[in-house]
């Protein structure tokens, strides 16, 4: 598990921090994630995607549960996502240096695209909540998410 921690902790911590936005809570969630990954490892189905995706989703879901359970969202909903501390923390250079930095990535996305991804991926919003938040029809949420991921996909390749 120590090896696992060394390999994944920064990625998981970054995502968790991006969601809960408080370092103490992020630490709690990171620890809960390790326990959950350990205990529910048998439910990981390799045919449904890579381990990393699964691990990310476990952490992400726990982080989202956290903010929901504390009704964290009530206060933070109007807070612009760009204000999160993670936004201002540069990606760690030693971690997968072949990847393009966050700055470059978000610069390539138009604001609408970034907003939709961040709401869905980091905000814990359901697609209908996102549609409501952005005042968009459900279908547009879908297509906009696809467009955003297409842009990102090109950057990541």
């Amino acid at each position, binding site marked *: *598990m120590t090896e696992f921690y060394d390999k994944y902790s920064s*990625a998981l911590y*970054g995502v968790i921090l991006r969601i809960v936005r408080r370092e103490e809570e992020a630490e709690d969630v*990171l620890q809960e994630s390790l326990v959950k990954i350990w205990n529910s490892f048998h439910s990981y189905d390799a045919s449904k995607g890579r*381990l990393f995706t699964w691990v990310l*989703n476990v952490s992400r879901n726990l982080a989202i549960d956290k903010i929901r359970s504390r009704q964290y969202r009530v206060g933070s909903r109007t807070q612009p996502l760009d204000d999160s501390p993670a936004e201002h923390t540069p990606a760690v250079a030693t971690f997968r240096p072949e990847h393009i930095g966050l700055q470059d990535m978000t610069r390539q996305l138009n604001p609408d695209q970034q907003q939709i991804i961040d709401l869905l991926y980091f905000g814990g919003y359901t697609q209908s909540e996102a549609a409501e938040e952005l005042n968009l029809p459900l279908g547009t949420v879908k297509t906009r998410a696809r467009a955003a991921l297409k842009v990102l996909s090109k950057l990541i390749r």
Partner: protein
Amino acid sequence: MNIEEYIESGQLELYVLQQLAPAEQAEVEQLATQYPEVRAELARIRQTLEGYAEAHAVQPPAAMRERVLGGWQQAIRSTEPIVTAPQPAQAQTPAQPEAVVRPISAAEPAETGSSWYRWLAAAAVALLVLSAGANMVFYNRWRDAEANLLAMQSDQARVASTMQVMEKRLGARTQELAVLRNEQFAPVVLKGVPAAPGARARVLYNASTHAVYLDVNNLPAAPAGKQYQLWALDKGKPVDAGMLTARTAAGDSLQQMKDIASAQAFAITLEDAGGHPTPNLSALTVMGQI
């Protein structure tokens, strides 16, 4: 169903983002088994989101590492029975091309750490039990030794008192022997009167120190209430020379009698117990001249 359109709809993105209802999820999974394009698209979306997540990576503070791993270890130890569940999953993972499963087994040192403590505790208990057993054995041996020691001590006391008695008797005999070997003592043989022909005794008289010893060879047993008495005859006049003890009368040992200044003859009479100032001549038993 036009699969191109389905892919373009953004449904797959929502699937990977875990935004779909269970029924829609099942549909996507079913299509993925059917169409390689769907599978490829899903893989691409996942990879993109992974990349996006990695781009947000934040190195946690160094101190957090110990805290989080420590907390994790504590948490899994408290849910130990559940931990056995991942075993089949571990067996299945080698089929997967990635080696990312390794970190899970890397947790084993932590596990062996806790089992090491368990072994240590077991060893401690075993030692305690052994020690208690040894204590019982040694306690029993100690009690045996204590009992033996007491027996030996009483034995030793008995031997010592016997020794004392023997020494005393030896001292008495040595003294008797010294008297017998001393040339200054003149032996006077007392012979039985006609009434007691078998009776015989001997007086050892030292004229210069006036010491008198009596050595009985044979005297009839004294009746109850009677005791033999030794007399010295000085110029025909009887002088009391002391009572014979029962042991002397039985011929057991020499007895020192009263000192006699001068005498020409000795005689023994049977008197009432405790003696008499004058001899009862009718009860004369033995007599002898110097």
